[in-house]
């Protein structure tokens, strides 16, 4: 199976080049690359919108874009970032690449379904991009009714239909991951020997499969209302606009966990490696992922505290929202205790992972403010909420994504990158992020509402800080594009296990051969057996 030509082992990257070999591949590692390229494009596209938003907000007057154009800007920023970047981000790239490697499998259970999911993703996201070029969407990423169905004159149907199509790609990935984890684990790899990354992928996949169809149903009903005049959400026809919010958040709150659980998985791999300590409380961390996946289905009502939902419902949802903080806190404490007495080194991916730890905790604590009924009435629909979810989604998930890309880059590409530039980028990102979003907490608490392109001059100080931070943050995200791009073609060759990490993915070559392992590996113990024997401990 392992064709060795001279001293150079056969790798998946050498398995034919040219568009056919990549676009018709069923190798999970190449599909991961397809996703990585598409998602990078979307990330910078959505990021460009964010920069325009921040430039507009640098002055109190609405001088750069009209209010209408501003609505379209933040809507498409949200739609791209949530649906075409964050939801697929880690699962479709790192998950696709690593899941089979981590469990000692040759590929995902359904390789063709995996490739199909990418095409569906491209088709659906292309459809939505069409709606942007045709004139844009002004409903925000949430498509709230009755505005989206009765009043908006923008291309809501096309955008919603595109998101609906992308949902199928999410479901395909979810099915593939669940079956793979159940049926393709290597001999000896019991559930409680799985790396936490695999646990979080499994939990994410469960949410993907069970929540995405509910989003599909609500988007279908929106399109039916706009195109066929079936007014399920139209109060004039006996419908109920609040019903849309229930359906939407029944998907979209669990989707928040689709967007954060994979990040937690990445960090759980990196922190033990660079502190040379086993993960503290493995079982608790593994099961808390499942707890988050399950509790995540029961808290959607906290988005509707001020939408006219009954006070009793609000009370229950508030209580359940506090409950979902418990498994997250379990993770944070276990990660912190993993660091205790460790031999910590600050490689690029570790810097990102530590950044995740701080930013996620900070954003999560703000979530507790929002889960409190009375406080939420004050800060609902203000920049406080914007800051909260950007701390989780950008400070948490995007930081974890960067951490993961840097950690597994040598495995994925077989090349090393400049550690110096990597560290600089990690620090610039961290500083830029806080400068951008911390002022938004203050703004929100002072009463600055979301979604306005102009504001009273007394908010200018904090807005200018935030806009300045956005420039720094953009710089931090652009840097890896250059030094990782350079590394891909010119970087020094990576050894099989540059970080002296545990895990099956490090047992094979960098980059791995087409079917991952020359021989099926056998697992005989728990994960994270740090420090390694060769560490001299």
């Amino acid at each position, binding site marked *: 199976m392992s064709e060795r030509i001279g001293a150079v082992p056969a790798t998946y990257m050498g398995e034919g080049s040219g568009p056919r070999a990549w676009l018709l591949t069923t190798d999970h590692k190449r599909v991961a690359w397809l996703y990585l390229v598409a998602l990078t494009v979307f990330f910078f596209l959505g990021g460009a919108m964010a920069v325009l938003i921040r430039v507009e907000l640098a002055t109190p007057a609405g001088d750069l874009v009209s209010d209408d154009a501003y609505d379209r800007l933040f809507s498409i920023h949200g739609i791209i970032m949530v649906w075409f970047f964050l939801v697929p981000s880690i699962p479709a790239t790192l998950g696709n690449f690593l899941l089979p490697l981590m469990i000692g499998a040759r590929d995902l259970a359904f390789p063709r379904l995996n490739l199909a999911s990418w095409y569906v993703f491209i088709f659906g996201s292309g459809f939505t991009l069409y709606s942007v070029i045709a004139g844009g969407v002004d409903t925000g990423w949430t498509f709230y009714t009755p505005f989206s169905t009765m009043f908006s004159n923008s291309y809501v149907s096309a955008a919603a239909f595109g998101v609906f199509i992308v949902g199928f790609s999410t479901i395909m990935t979810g099915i593939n991951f669940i079956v793979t984890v159940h049926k393709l684990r290597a001999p000896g790899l019991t559930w409680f020997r799985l790396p936490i990354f695999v646990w979080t992928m499994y939990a994410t996949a469960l949410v993907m499969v069970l929540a995405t169809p*509910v989003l599909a149903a609500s988007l279908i009903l929106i399109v039916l209302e706009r195109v066929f005049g079936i007014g399920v959400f139209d109060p004039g*026809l*006996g419908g*109920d606009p609040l*019903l849309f919010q229930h359906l939407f958040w029944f998907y979209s709150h669990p989707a928040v966990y689709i967007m954060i659980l994979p990040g937690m998985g990445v960090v759980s791999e990196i922190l033990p490696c660079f502190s040379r300590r086993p993960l503290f409380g493995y079982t608790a961390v593994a099961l808390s992922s499942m707890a988050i996946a399950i509790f995540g289905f029961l808290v959607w009502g906290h988005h509707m505290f001020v939408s006219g939902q009954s006070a009793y419902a609000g009370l229950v949802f508030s209580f359940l929202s506090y409950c979902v903080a418990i498994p997250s806190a379990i993770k944070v404490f276990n990660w912190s205790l993993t660091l205790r007495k460790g031999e910590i080194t600050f490689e690029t991916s570790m810097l990102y992972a530590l950044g995740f730890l701080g930013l996620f905790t900070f954003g999560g604590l703000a979530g507790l403010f929002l889960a409190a009924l009375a406080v939420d009435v004050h800060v609902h629909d203000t920049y406080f909420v914007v800051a909260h979810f950007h701390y989780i989604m950008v400070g948490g998930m995007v930081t974890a994504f960067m951490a993961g890309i840097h950690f597994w880059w040598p495995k994925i590409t077989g090349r090393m990158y400049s550690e110096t530039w990597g560290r600089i980028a990690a620090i610039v990102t961290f500083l830029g992020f806080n400068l951008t979003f911390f002022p938004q907490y203050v703004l929100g608490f002072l009463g600055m509402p979301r979604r306005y392109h102009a504001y009273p001059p007394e908010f200018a100080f904090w807005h200018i800080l935030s806009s300045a931070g956005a420039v720094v943050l953009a710089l931090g995200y652009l840097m890896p594009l250059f030094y990782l791009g350079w590394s891909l073609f010119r970087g020094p060759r990576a050894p099989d296990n540059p970080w002296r990490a545990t895990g099956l993915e490090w047992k094979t070559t960098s980059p791995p051969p087409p079917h991952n392992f020359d021989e099926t590996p056998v697992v005989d113990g728990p994960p994270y057996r740090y420090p390694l024997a060769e560490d001299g401990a």
Partner: protein
Amino acid sequence: MSGAVESEAFRDAERERQADAFGRWIFIGSEAMLFGAVMLVYLTARMAHPEGFGEASSRLSLLLGTVNTAVLITSSLAMALADLLVKLGRRRAAAWALAATALLGLAFLAVKGVEYADEVREGLAPVLGLPFAFEGADPRGAQLFFELYFASTGLHAAHLIGGLAAIATVLATWRRSTDAACLRRTRAVGLYWHFVDIVWVFLFPLLYLVHR
């Protein structure tokens, strides 16, 4: 080893068969959530408008609805027979059973089309800006009922058409395929077909039997 594997991910055909079946069930679970959400919307609306929904429901044709239920359940019988026959190695007979399943599915769609046409003629179809007129205590509730009726039965019909396309694909490659491939495909399309049937078994009482 019990035969060749289809995908390179597997070394063992039995394990691949289990994984295929498992994946299909997860897909069905996902589909159940889709229809579950639509039925939930319906039930919420019905709780808000019990009178309007009752009156509107009695305007549906119970006869045609019942006939259609019988047709669809019979199609599932034919599908079950196809599964049995292909397992016994009687490929020709199994193909006929699949064809019968598809024909019954087409019959269901035809009857559904007649029902839709009747409802449009009676002014009971509040879609595409068609005139809607309803005499009763709660015309707005009735209108909502008919909207949800068209949305849910339309979604169901779309799934049925998907099933018909799947059967057609299986039959088109029937002669060229191995016994094992035929069995696997019959299983796959069969599970889906039965699921679409069961959705109707829920939709029928929800929509047709509100006040009867």
